[in-house]
C-alpha cells in the first residue's frame, strides 16, 4: 500500500499526495492544540511527579545534597518497620469499617429520599450539606462532638443514662470515631449519585409490581436493588480506593494516635517524608500503595466497561 503511494520506479510520478499521517495531523491539529495545555499541565504536575517518585524510591535523597542510588534498601527499610504492618492493618480496618458503616448509609438514605412525596428537595439539601462544609469546619465541629468532657456525644449519652465514651481518646474507639465522622462528612455526594440512579428506574416496573401485589420490601428487593446494582458495584470499588487513601481525618484529628491506632499508610508516608526527611522510603511506600490501588482501579475500569456495554 505504501509502495503504491511512493513508487520508487522511474516514470511519471503520480500526483503528489500528502502522507496519511500528515493529513491526520492537519485534520486533528485544532484538537491537539486544544489538548496541549491540559497535556502540559498533566505532564508537569501528574506524570512527571509519578515518574520522579518511582526513581526516588530507589534513591537516598534529601532534596539538598545530590541523590545516591541505594537499590532496594528503601523497600527493606519500610518492610522491616513495625509500623508498616500497623499502618496497613489500620488502613484496612478503616476501609472495612467505612464499608460496614458508610457503604449502605447513602443507599438507604437515597431510597428513603426518593420515596418521599413532599419536601424531597429539602432533605436532599439537608443530607448534602456536610459535603459543602469546609474540611476544617468539620474537624473543629467533630473535635467538640468528641470532647470527653462537655462534648455533644457524651452529653447525649449522659442524657440517655449511658456511660460516656472516650471517642478519640482511646486506641479502641479512635478509628471507629474517625469513620463515623468521615461517613457523616462524605455520604451526601454518594447519596446524590444513588438518587440519580434511582430516578432513572422506569416507574412502569413499580406499577407492574404493585398490580402484582408486591409490597415495599419486595419492590425494593426485586426492582430497586437490581436496577442500581451497577452503580452500587462501581461506587463500592471507588469507596475502597478512596478510603485506602485516608489521610486528612487521622492527620488533623489524632495525628495517628493514640498509640498509632489511627496511623494509616498515607500518614506513615507523610511521616517518612516530612518528619524524618526520608523521601526515598516515602516514595517506596507510595509505590506499594500505588500497586494496590492500581489493582482496584483495574477492577473499577473493568466494571465500568462491562456496565457501559450492557446498558
Amino acid at each position, binding site marked *: 500500500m505504501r509502495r503504491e503511494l511512493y513508487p520508487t520506479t522511474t516514470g511519471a510520478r503520480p500526483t503528489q499526495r500528502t502522507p496519511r499521517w500528515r493529513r491526520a495531523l492537519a485534520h486533528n491539529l485544532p484538537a491537539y492544540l486544544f489538548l496541549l495545555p491540559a497535556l502540559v499541565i498533566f505532564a508537569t504536575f501528574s506524570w512527571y511527579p509519578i515518574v520522579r517518585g518511582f526513581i526516588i524510591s530507589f534513591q537516598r535523597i534529601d532534596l*539538598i*545534597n545530590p541523590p545516591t542510588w541505594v537499590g532496594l534498601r528503601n523497600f527493606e527499610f519500610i518492610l522491616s518497620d513495625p509500623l508498616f504492618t500497623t499502618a496497613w492493618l489500620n488502613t484496612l480496618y478503616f476501609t472495612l469499617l467505612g464499608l460496614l458503616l458508610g457503604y449502605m448509609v447513602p443507599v438507604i438514605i437515597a431510597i428513603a429520599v426518593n420515596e418521599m412525596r413532599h419536601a424531597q428537595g429539602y432533605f436532599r439539601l439537608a443530607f448534602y450539606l456536610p459535603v459543602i462544609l469546609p474540611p476544617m469546619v468539620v474537624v473543629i465541629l467533630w473535635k467538640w462532638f468528641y470532647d470527653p468532657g462537655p462534648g455533644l456525644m457524651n452529653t447525649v449519652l449522659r442524657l440517655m443514662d449511658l456511660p460516656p465514651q472516650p471517642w478519640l*481518646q482511646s486506641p479502641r474507639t479512635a478509628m471507629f470515631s474517625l469513620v463515623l465522622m468521615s461517613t457523616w462528612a462524605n455520604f451526601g455526594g454518594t447519596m446524590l449519585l444513588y438518587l440519580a440512579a434511582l430516578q432513572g428506574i422506569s416507574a412502569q416496573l413499580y406499577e407492574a409490581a404493585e398490580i402484582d401485589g408486591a409490597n415495599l420490601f419486595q419492590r425494593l428487593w426485586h426492582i430497586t436493588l437490581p436496577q442500581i446494582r451497577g452503580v452500587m458495584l462501581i461506587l463500592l470499588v471507588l469507596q475502597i480506593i478512596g478510603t485506602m487513601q485516608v489521610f486528612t481525618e487521622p492527620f488533623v484529628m489524632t495525628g495517628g494516635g*493514640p*498509640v498509632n491506632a489511627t496511623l494509616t499508610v498515607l500518614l506513615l508516608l507523610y511521616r517518612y517524608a516530612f518528619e524524618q526527611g526520608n523521601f526515598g522510603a516515602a516514595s517506596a511506600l507510595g509505590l506499594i500503595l500505588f500497586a494496590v490501588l492500581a489493582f482496584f482501579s483495574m477492577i473499577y475500569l473493568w466494571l465500568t466497561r462491562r456496565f457501559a456495554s450492557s446498558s
Partner: protein
Amino acid sequence: MRKGTYRSLLTRLLLALALVGPTAVAQITVTTTNAPNENVPEEVARHQQLLEEFAELRPDVRIEARQTTFDRQTFLAKLAAGTMEDAFLVAFTEPQWLIDNGYVADVTEYLQAWQHFDSFNPEALQIVQDEQGRLYGFPVGGYALGLMYNCKMFEEAGLDPMSPPTTWEELREVAKLLSDPLRGRAGFAALSKGGQGGWHLVTMIYSFGGDLVEQRDGRWVATINTPEARAALETLKTMRWEDESLTQQQLLEVRDVLPLLATERVAMAIMAGDSLRSLKVQYEADMDRFCLGPLPQAGGDATLAGGAAWMFNPRSSPEVLQAAVEWSLFQTFEAYESDLRAQAARGQLVGWPELPIFVGEYQAIRDEIIARYANAPIENYRPFLEATHIRLKPEPPVEAQQLYRILDVVAQAILTDPFADPEQVLLRAEREFQTRVLDQLP
C-alpha cells in the same frame, strides 16, 4: 515638538532612576522567621521599635520578619525551593542534625566580629558548633523545665504555695487534693502530642534517674526500657486511672494546656519559664496566681534544660548572611535594655526565670538590667530559683525530635489505655527507636 517633549521626559526619568537607583540596588533584604504575633499589638509594637533602632545602625538593610516558625516538616522543601528564610530560630534539638547534613551556613567570622562574642558561655556555644569548632548560629536563651502551679488554688486547699511538691509521690497527693471533677478541674496535665509528650516524658525519666540513649563502641544504643522509665510511667498511670487526677482530655500539647491553666481548669503542669510570658501575653492571666517550682524528683535530681538558637540559610549570599547575623544579635542582645524597658512599659512580663548563656561581666550587666525592669512576681518563682541541687541535663544528644515522637506514643498508651503495660510499651519504643532511627544513622 512632541518628539522633543518625549526625549526630555525620558532624560528626566533616566536621571531620576540614576539618582534613586544606587540606594535601591544596595538595599539588602533579610528574611527571618518568628515575626511578632499580629494579634498581639504589644509584640508588634516591640518589633517595630527594634526595627527602627536597627535602621539607625544599618540603614541599607531591610528586615522582613515572616509569620512562620522553623518546622522540620517543611524545612527541606523550603530550602530546596529557595524559599527558606535567611535566619531561623530552632530548638536545641535541631542544630546537630542541621550541621551534620550541611543545611546551615557557617557564620563563624560574622559572630566573632561581635563585641561581646567572648562572653558567650563556651558550653552553650557547643550546641551550634561542628567538630572543628566552626559556628553555625548562636543560642538566644535557655530554659529548665519546672513545675508551674496555681498558687491561689494551693492556698484555697490549705497548702503552702511556697512549698510545692518536690517528689512525684507528693505531687500525686497534691494533684488528688486539687482535682475536682464536678467543676471540671484536674490536678495535673500531661502532654502526649506533637513531640511534646516525649519531651516531657524524657524530663520525667531524668527526674527518676534514667537516661534514654548511650554510646557503646562508637554506636548509639537506645536504653528506653529501664526501671526508671517504668517507674515514671507507673506514676503517670496511677495518676490517670487510679487517682483520676489528670485531665479527661488527652493528646495535649503546651498550647492546649496553657488555656487550661489560665482558666483554672488545671492546677499543675510541667512547663518552662517562658510559658509564664505566654500566659500573660496570650491569655492575660493574673500572674500573681502562678508560681514556678522545681521539677518533682524521684532519685534523679535532674531536669531537662533546653533552649533556642538562631541559625542561617546556607544559600543566602555573604552580605545577607552578615546582615542576618547582625540583626539577630541586635534584636536578641544589643537592644536588651530598651527592649525590656519598652516591654515593661507595655505591661508585658519581664523577669521570668531564664538560664544565663553568657559569663562574666556581660552577664552581670544583663542581670542588672533585668532586675531594673522586672515586673514579674519573682517571689512566686523562689522555689524554682532556690532548687540549686537539681542538675541541668541537656536534651538527648542524638535524634532527639524523633525520640520525642516515638515517646509520644508511649505517653499516649499510658494516658489513654488503662490496661497498657509500661514495660511492653517501653520495649516497643526502644526497638522502634533503635531500628528505625539509630541503626539508620550514617
